[in-house]
């Protein structure tokens, strides 16, 4: 069973208005193992284990999709922009090469 992963969505700037274009940062705790490194303790090769698909949605409608490889750093960071048209909910869904799926949401609350 997939264990829940720690992840975070950040809007930059924190305070914004309707009509602004903000940054949406997403960071998640994930090993992003390439399948080429050995475990220092056991001497065994750690199998490839990396996030391969990410979808950013606003109120259920995707606005950015990503295909990602093991060449992205451990505990990956991704950043894109979003035009703020009103209140809503941003959801980031991601899956990895083992089939593990997770998601994180954050409410979009523009001031004025």
């Amino acid at each position, binding site marked *: 069973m997939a264990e829940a992963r720690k992840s975070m969505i950040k809007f930059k700037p924190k305070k914004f208005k309707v009509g602004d*274009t903000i*940054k949406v940062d997403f960071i998640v705790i994930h090993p992003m193992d*390439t*399948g*080429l*490194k*050995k475990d220092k303790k056991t001497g065994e090769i750690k199998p*490839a284990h990396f996030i391969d698909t990410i979808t950013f949605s*606003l109120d259920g409608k*995707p*606005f*950015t*999709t*990503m*295909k*990602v*490889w*093991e*060449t*992205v*750093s*451990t505990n*990956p*960071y*991704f*950043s*894109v*922009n*979003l*035009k703020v048209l009103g209140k809503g909910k941003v959801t980031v869904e991601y899956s990895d090469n083992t089939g593990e799926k997770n998601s994180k949401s954050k409410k979009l609350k523009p001031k004025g």
Partner: protein
Amino acid sequence: MKRRIFLKSICTVSAIAVTAPSTLLAKEAMKGENALSYDAAVMAITSGKAVTASDKVKLVVPEIAENGAVVPVKVHVESPMTDTDYVKAIHVLSSKNGNARCADVMLTPLNGKGYFATRVKLGATQDVVALVEMSDGTFLRAAKSVKVTIGGCG
């Protein structure tokens, strides 16, 4: 005299013995199962279509990577991001990693800006490349060299 020659030859031999396997490992170590080399990756993305170097694509990477395992990459593409004129995709690649592909980011006008940032692993000094597909089907490109002292892949 003979002793000096003997000692010299031992030093040279052991130096070779130490470097050779690690260079081999460095080459082998970078290739995973679905690895595509840079040229193969570009072909997979563009299907052979022309790619133009463009200063509409601004690629921001460090000149020297303190840590090859975590190299920040930012791509800015000048674009109105309207329904008829927007950045369709930003592909981040590396020129010499065993797997040249890092990320394919499919954007939409709702992004508001043609922008993507992430952190990648670089196994050795090489170019980071941003391959950008515009909504009219054209491909733009920007590349920058990053010096890597401690390789990022193992």
